[in-house]
């Protein structure tokens, strides 16, 4: 072990960074693969079916089979498509979905790039993800794809505002844009996490996150009953797989961020209680993953139980419900911060 550590330290910095990137991306991609399996199993059980159960024991090798299938399928290029943009679009989708993980802290100090404006960086990158969808839909030169991408553009822009405002309350409560410091500000146990003082924002953020990732019940961008598959109707093989990978990576990111900002990230839920010492041996990373899994399950649960929203209802929810709630709550948090209400707002000033 010590030999390995000394070997690692002897490497040039850029190789160390590359190794760290691999250490983040490899588990992430594996999680994506098994998230698709979990999705099919969970929704299957919710609908009293078995889900995939043929490839490998209990269907455990299903994602591997899917990957192999997608890799060896031909990438079809529609004749009248804009070739370059058609191929760039899935790369943009995946690139932004993966790059956002650069500032994500997995434990105290365990982060690839510990930057001051981490929250802003993540918001900027997730807002760029929509370009993959728009460009892909336009470059396909198909009516259905264009409709899907236009719907997606309008929806993302609408929900980004609510999402941004929800994050403003988080940064007001934490007094920092750095994700590590946001978690540190929630130190002190279950009741000290931000879910309680920012309860409406917690709900708004997660729902906006579902809308941003174009997932059910907000998946009008793909709406298979009306526009076939929306923006990726003309994509096949690996190009389609990249879109798929990006969507799931984004879902995991939103789940992990919700856990980080509202449920105390890697902090133990038993902090401050008599049970704290019993769970001291659990690494913080495990708590973070468990909390993120809760929201990842919510995604599947929503998909299995809710019908798709009608387009005008999506717009109404975004503009007339969420944005007013978030603006009111920014004022509420401001007042709580000024008068030091509760134990969340006693840090005071900029950190």
């Amino acid at each position, binding site marked *: 072990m010590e030999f390995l550590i000394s070997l690692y330290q002897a490497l040039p910095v850029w190789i160390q960074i590359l190794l760290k990137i691999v250490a983040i991306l490899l588990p992430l991609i594996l999680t994506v693969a098994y998230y698709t399996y979990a999705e099919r199993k969970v929704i299957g059980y919710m609908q009293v079916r078995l889900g995939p159960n043929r490839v490998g024991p209990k269907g455990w090798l299903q994602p591997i089979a899917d990957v192999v299938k997608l890799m060896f399928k031909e990438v079809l290029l529609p004749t009248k498509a804009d070739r370059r*943009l058609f191929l760039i679009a899935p790369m943009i989708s995946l690139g932004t979905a993966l790059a956002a993980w650069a500032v994500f802290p997995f434990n105290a100090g365990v982060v690839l790039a510990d*930057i*001051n*404006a981490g929250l*802003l*960086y993540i*918001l*900027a*990158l997730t*807002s*760029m993800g*929509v*370009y993959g969808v*728009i*460009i892909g839909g*336009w470059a396909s030169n198909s009516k259905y794809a*264009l409709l899907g*991408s*236009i719907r997606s*553009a*309008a929806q*993302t*822009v609408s929900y*980004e505002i609510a999402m*941004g405002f929800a994050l403003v309350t988080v940064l007001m409560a934490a007094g920092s*844009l750095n994700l590590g410091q946001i978690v540190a500000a929630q130190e002190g146990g279950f009741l000290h996490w931000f879910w309680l003082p920012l309860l409406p924002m917690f709900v708004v953020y997660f729902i906006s996150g579902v809308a941003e990732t174009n997932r059910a019940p907000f998946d009008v961008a793909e709406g298979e009953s009306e526009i076939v598959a929306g923006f990726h109707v003309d994509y096949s093989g690996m190009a389609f797989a990249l879109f798929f990978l990006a969507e799931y990576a984004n879902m995991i990111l939103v789940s992990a961020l919700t856990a980080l900002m509202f449920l105390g990230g890697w902090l133990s839920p038993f902090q401050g209680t008599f049970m704290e010492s019993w769970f001291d041996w659990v690494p913080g990373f495990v708590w973070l993953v468990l909390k993120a899994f809760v929201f990842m399950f919510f995604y599947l649960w929503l998909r299995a139980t809710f019908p798709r929203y009608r387009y*005008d209802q999506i717009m*109404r929810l975004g503009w007339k419900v969420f944005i007013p709630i978030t603006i009111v709550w920014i004022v509420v948090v401001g007042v709580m911060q000024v008068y030091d209400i509760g134990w969340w707002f006693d840090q005071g000033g*900029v950190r």
Partner: protein
Amino acid sequence: MTFQHFLFYLFTFFAVGAALMVITRRNPVHSALFLVLVFFNVAGLWMLAEAEFLALALVLVYVGAVMVLFLFVIMMLDVDLAALRAGFIRHLPLGLLVAAILFVEMIVVLGPAHFGLSVYVAPDPAPADYNNTAALGLSLFREHLYALEVAAVILLVAMIAAIGLTLRKRPETKRQVVSHQHRVKKEDRLRIIKMAAEEK
């Protein structure tokens, strides 16, 4: 040449190159996408100038929202390219004149005599714990509070005016009022009638 210099020239090269592509591409969607690339590279330049908040805000606002709406409109409109190019030669002299004036003005104002390193000394690099976002916030809300408030009110007025100008109330449009829908009771919609059983 340090790494920062290399990055500076890289970002500048791509920003200028993409800006040229914006005005030379025939397809308006391509132009808009190159404009996105310009914003992105300029954000990189701002990042080099240690203005990380502005850089990220540029990406967030212009790339993430403004250009998405731009593309939204461009993709929906069927832009007639022939009509756009029709007056090119006729308006060329005027365009060249405007370009020349702008060029000369920029040389005069931004030239080394007024804007060089001797006039504006390069600031020392900020310490590692410098927080650009916090510094900007403190400056805006302490020193420039009134200017900020005035700007905010002007933007609000502009927003309300834009909404007011486009808001049309047409009597024939049907719209759902969700609160009415929620208040509906069974008695409002459903009528239970008694009837004798019918024989077939």
